[in-house]
């Protein structure tokens, strides 16, 4: 039993390598298809395979990547470089492969549209399959929204989602996979930073409470949370330093130090904003913040890559690879606190109420 736990700790430590982060490539064929089609690329299995190959094999990418989250389809696809399945290719490059199991979203009755994710049934069996395919971790995302007027996220919404995340985590560990738990509070809304801090502490406290209650091995689990930000349409302005402090404050109030790394999702932030904020967080880190704080980005890194294909004939693999690695270098610098932002990247510019944007 202790060998199994030691293995989980080893994988979690690899994922949390300072200066490296996660490339999240787990969009299902439907979702990635939408992104392809928006720029005129046909959604075929080969295109999906070739595109992911670039994300895994671009020269220099593995300097900045500790792990990759894959869609189940990708687990069984092979590299054209050497005919090996992608999990093996990734591991050989020092990038830990993991998977996002299929989940279905379900509306919670009476909760104004708040949801819960379904997928615990047969998860153990699927995890065993993923492990056999070469995965070392899994990821489960529970989306939540702040809607102060409607009392969301309500206690029920939070408890239901966080309890399921804890159960998922336990099931993963029982099958030898490190669970990445992803409570994702959306950027959407007009709430201020103080409200965001309060709600994030409430949600994350419940998550870690449920994880401890369920006996999840904390040292072998990883957090992938949203960055703490004011709502996208919040009229009040905040500097990137204020945002960084809010992020650290939330973690200090509830994130167990037994967990060694948190890799933020981008959640609609541009690469520039996400990097500026991650960098500010790492520049401010002190004795109270012993965790590795890094990235697990999909849209922030990948949306610019799709733009390279617009008006062109098919996937521009070489250009994609070059831009991708350049972006990862920025993300890595932010994870080390050595990035330099341009202008006011990372600040939240509130459009202001009657009296302007500053509080």
């Amino acid at each position: 039993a202790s060998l199994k736990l030691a293995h989980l700790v080893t994988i979690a430590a690899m994922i949390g390598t300072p200066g490296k982060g996660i490339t999240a490539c787990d969009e299902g064929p439907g979702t990635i298809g939408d992104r392809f089609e928006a720029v005129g690329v046909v959604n075929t299995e080969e295109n999906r395979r070739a595109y992911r190959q670039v994300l895994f094999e671009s020269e220099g990418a593995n300097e900045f990547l500790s792990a990759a989250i894959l869609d189940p389809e990708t687990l069984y696809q092979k590299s054209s470089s050497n005919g090996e399945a992608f999990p093996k290719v990734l591991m050989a490059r020092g990038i830990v492969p993991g998977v996002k199991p299929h989940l279905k979203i379900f509306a919670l009755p009476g909760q104004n549209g708040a949801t819960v994710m379904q997928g615990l049934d047969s998860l153990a069996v699927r995890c065993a399959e993923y492990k056999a395919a070469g995965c070392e971790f899994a990821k489960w995302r529970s989306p939540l929204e702040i809607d102060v007027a409607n009392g969301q996220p309500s206690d029920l919404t939070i408890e239901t989602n966080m309890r399921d995340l804890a159960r998922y985590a336990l099931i993963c560990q029982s099958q030898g996979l490190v669970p990445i738990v992803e409570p994702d509070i959306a950027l959407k809304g007009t709430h201020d930073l103080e409200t965001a801090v309060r709600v994030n502490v409430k949600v994350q406290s419940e998550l870690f409470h449920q994880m401890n209650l369920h006996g999840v091995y904390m040292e072998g689990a990883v957090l992938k949370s949203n960055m703490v930000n004011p709502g996208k349409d919040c009229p009040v302005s905040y500097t990137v330093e204020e945002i960084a402090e809010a992020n650290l404050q939330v973690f200090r109030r509830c994130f167990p130090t037994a967990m060694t790394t948190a890799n933020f999702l981008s959640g609609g932030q541009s690469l520039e904003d996400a990097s500026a904020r991650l960098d500010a967080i790492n520049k401010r880190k002190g004795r109270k913040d012993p965790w590795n704080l890094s990235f697990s980005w999909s849209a922030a890194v990948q949306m610019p890559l799709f733009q390279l294909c617009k008006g062109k004939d098919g996937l521009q693999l070489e250009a994609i690879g070059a831009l991708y690695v350049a972006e990862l270098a920025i993300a890595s610098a932010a994870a080390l606190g050595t990035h330099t932002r341009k202008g006011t990247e990372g600040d939240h510019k509130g459009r202001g109420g009657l009296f302007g944007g500053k509080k």
Partner: protein
Amino acid sequence: NSESSRQALRELLFTTPGFEKRCAGVILYEETLFQTCVDGTPFVELLVSKNILPGIKVDKGVVAIPGCEDRGETTTAGLDGLEERCATYYQKGARFAKWRGVLTVGKNGKGPSERCLALNCDALANYAAICQKNGLVPIVEPEILTDGDHDIAVSQAVTTVVLQRVFESLNKAGVLLEGMVLKPNMVTSGVDCLKKADAATVAKLTVETLRRTVPPSVPGILFLSGGQTEDEATSHLNLMNKNSPLTNPWTLSFSYGRALQATVLKTWGGKSENVQAAQAALFERADANGKASLGEL
């Protein structure tokens, strides 16, 4: 045991030369808060002059939980009138308070009953909120007794459940974590356990449990000594601070009663001619524990 002998003991302790080098605060009983030295100097004034914070125990002891008598479970009384008492204590010079909840590992090591957990953690949280409202830093003390023959794994499991319930309750009550102190038990084997865990294991599992449950915002974790001997209490604390492979976000130190005073009391025996020797014994213990809190022994 008379008021004057209690006064004499406390005067002995507070006038110990060098005491202030290792003691940042003293938890007093209400009687002591209002007592003076033989020369008339209030104890509170003496402590403050040495930069030692006066604190006050505010709970009124344990009471049986109706329906849980067969399990021997208790809750702690003292919330009624606490607000008014806090105001009085603050006025007298107290700047922090302490409340002790007592729990057990339960039948077959299954932990406290849900009722016991709820009552004790709610009481601790309410106490803490009331204190902060009245300018007193609350020391939150959920003590899990070592009574029993359980092994250290049971202690770890129960301590985990209790601590994370404590913090859940504190969060719900809106307690400012940055303005409180935790006083927990260490994770140890039961007192009648046949295969007792060694000191290094006690240190390792205690820190592991705290890293899983105590948010970094809490500035300090100051252990109770429970039934440990003076040497055990010091050695465990030292190993925690020495052996920790990762930097802890809170200080790990001591809030010892018996483990600081056992030798002192024996040496003193109530006789004024023994005061100097007793004071030397106190300083020796305080100094050792101070070094242990830095892992320097």
